[in-house]
């Protein structure tokens, strides 16, 4: 009897392994497939055969015969760069969302809970109003830098407000995030009303877009993403244990305060970097961790890689839709598309999986 239950339990534990690996594989293949499809979409028509040839050219020079340099530039430096940025930004936001939900022990937390996005939007708006949007350095506009600085300022304010007796409490942190966000939002509205010419630029930036981004932007986000991924995976076991509550985690040997501080800082830096290059793309960080948790369970060591891939995939798909939906060739803000895709899913969670959300 006991042997039977034991083997059963072993099945229960190991069964998730193939599911997990299948998930990773499906996500990776979908990303590659969507990237390929999206590379052929655009005002400048390029046949898929040429794209495949260009993609494979680093491995085999023979594919690179008689391809126009202009086409090569568009495929590699415009479309592929944009694909990579979409995956990086989506992965970063989803990963940060998973960390926020784990650390704040709140299913409704997302990368913007602590006011990082509003801070970035405030920084960017200020730069736009001051006319710094046109200033360029190394083919990079001043906006990402201003947005990143705004995010840091907001984060620091939240940290100061959310600390009580030198400790970070989850509820106070969330409250501080809401307060700082609301305050900065009203400042953004003030800026908008002061200078009506810039309103559309500000609004478009806030809604998030990947249009006109290049490898420079990928290079900007990459260091944060690399360090962030490493740190977050490093603490994946602690993230599991934190879901038992602060006191239990502490009693099991987790230095709760230290880990909460570092993980929040890292996740916020990753978010800030993503927001700085792409604007505010909502819903990815909220919805993707939940979706993946339903698929492969809450264990962070297996969850986090899948969350990263799924986030990247979602933004890539959203961006493809954003730039191909309107027949006129104009682009929609990608943040609008993610919200339209993510909203119904969250409604489903709320209506049918309330127990899962523990509401």
């Amino acid at each position, binding site marked *: 009897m*006991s042997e039977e*239950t*034991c083997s*059963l*339990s072993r*099945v*229960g*534990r190991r069964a998730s392994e193939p599911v997990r690996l299948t998930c990773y594989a499906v996500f990776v293949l979908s990303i590659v497939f969507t990237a390929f499809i999206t590379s052929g979409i655009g005002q400048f028509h390029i046949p898929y055969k040429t794209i495949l040839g260009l993609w494979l050219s680093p491995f085999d020079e023979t594919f690179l015969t008689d391809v126009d340099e202009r086409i090569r530039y568009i495929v590699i430096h415009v479309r592929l760069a944009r694909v990579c940025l979409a995956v990086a930004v989506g992965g970063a936001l989803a990963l940060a969302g998973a960390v926020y939900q*784990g650390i704040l*022990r709140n*299913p409704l937390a997302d990368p913007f809970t602590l006011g990082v996005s509003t801070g970035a939007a405030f920084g960017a708006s200020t730069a736009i109003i001051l006319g710094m949007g046109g200033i360029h350095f190394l083919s990079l506009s001043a906006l990402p830098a201003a947005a990143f600085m705004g995010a840091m300022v907001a984060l620091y304010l939240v940290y100061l407000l959310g600390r009580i*007796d030198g400790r970070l409490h989850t509820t106070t942190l969330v409250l501080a995030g809401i307060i700082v966000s609301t305050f900065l939002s009203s400042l953004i509205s003030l800026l908008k009303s002061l200078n009506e010419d810039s309103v559309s630029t500000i609004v478009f930036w806030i809604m998030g877009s990947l249009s006109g981004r290049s490898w420079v932007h990928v290079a900007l986000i990459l260091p944060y993403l690399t360090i962030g991924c490493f740190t977050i995976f*490093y603490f994946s*076991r602690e993230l*599991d*244990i934190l*879901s*038992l*509550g602060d*006191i*239990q985690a*502490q*009693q*099991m*040997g*987790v*230095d709760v305060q230290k880990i909460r501080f570092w993980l929040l800082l890292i996740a916020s830096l990753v978010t800030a970097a993503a927001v700085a290059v792409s604007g505010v793309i909502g819903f990815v960080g909220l919805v993707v961790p939940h979706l993946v*948790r339903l698929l492969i*369970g*809450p*264990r962070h060591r297996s969850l986090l890689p899948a969350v990263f891939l799924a986030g990247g995939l979602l933004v890539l798909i959203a961006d493809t839709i954003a730039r191909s939906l309107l027949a006129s060739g104009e682009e929609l803000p990608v943040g609008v598309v993610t919200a339209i895709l993510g909203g119904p899913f969250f409604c489903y969670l709320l209506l049918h999986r309330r*127990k*899962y959300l*523990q509401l």
Partner: protein
Amino acid sequence: MIRVRDLRCGYPGHEVIRGVSFDVMRGEFVGILGPNGSGKTTLLLALGGILPILEGEVGIHGSPLGKFKPKDLARRMAALCQNPEIRFPFPCEEIVHMGRYPHQKRWQMENPYDAAIVKRSMEITDTLDLSGRLITALSGGEQQRVLMAKALAQDTPILLLDEATSAMDIHRKLQIFQVLERLSSEKELTVLTVLHDVNTAALFCRRMIFLKEGVMVADGPTEEVLTEETLEVVYRTRVLIYEPEGTGKRQVVFLPGRVERS
């Protein structure tokens, strides 16, 4: 094993424990009792290094608590707190595995020794049949059993329990306490448990500490301190103590009405 001297601690602006001293030896089974707000939980949190100590000292194994890193402390002392709130739907077996955390190095694969301890802890708490179930889908009593298994998997010489069996039915409660009693006498596990149920405490705790308003009212072997006088002082309720035949243990009946003695 545990040494507490003139301990004062509490929350900002509200001192809960106001000067408590005692020693606990290896293998003791101590019940901490007292009315609501008497400081039982606070005392346990201070012993576990969760609450900062305002004055006095707490030491285990001859060193003050502050000297231990969280992981070192967790290898010496496991604790279960009141009302844990578990956030994500982990399978129960995964929860018990988390108990091995303080013994594991980072990136280390789980070794057979860990797996064996997890299995044994689940066996003795009778939770093997829950292993594949999700912790969030269990009843309160079942959750407490899984968390008990997790605390035992932590494999520490000291165990601090705060109402860790409060939601269990009588059968499960007695089962768990029998396991603890056996571990205490056979493996010299030191158990400190906060309990509201005086009768369960009377059956299993060999020593009792009574707290009231943050000070110690009584401390000693159960047969010496579990008296009508002590209980009436602590709970301000009339009590009757009797010894059911053949048990050799005292049991208590609380009666409505005012205390006659003062």
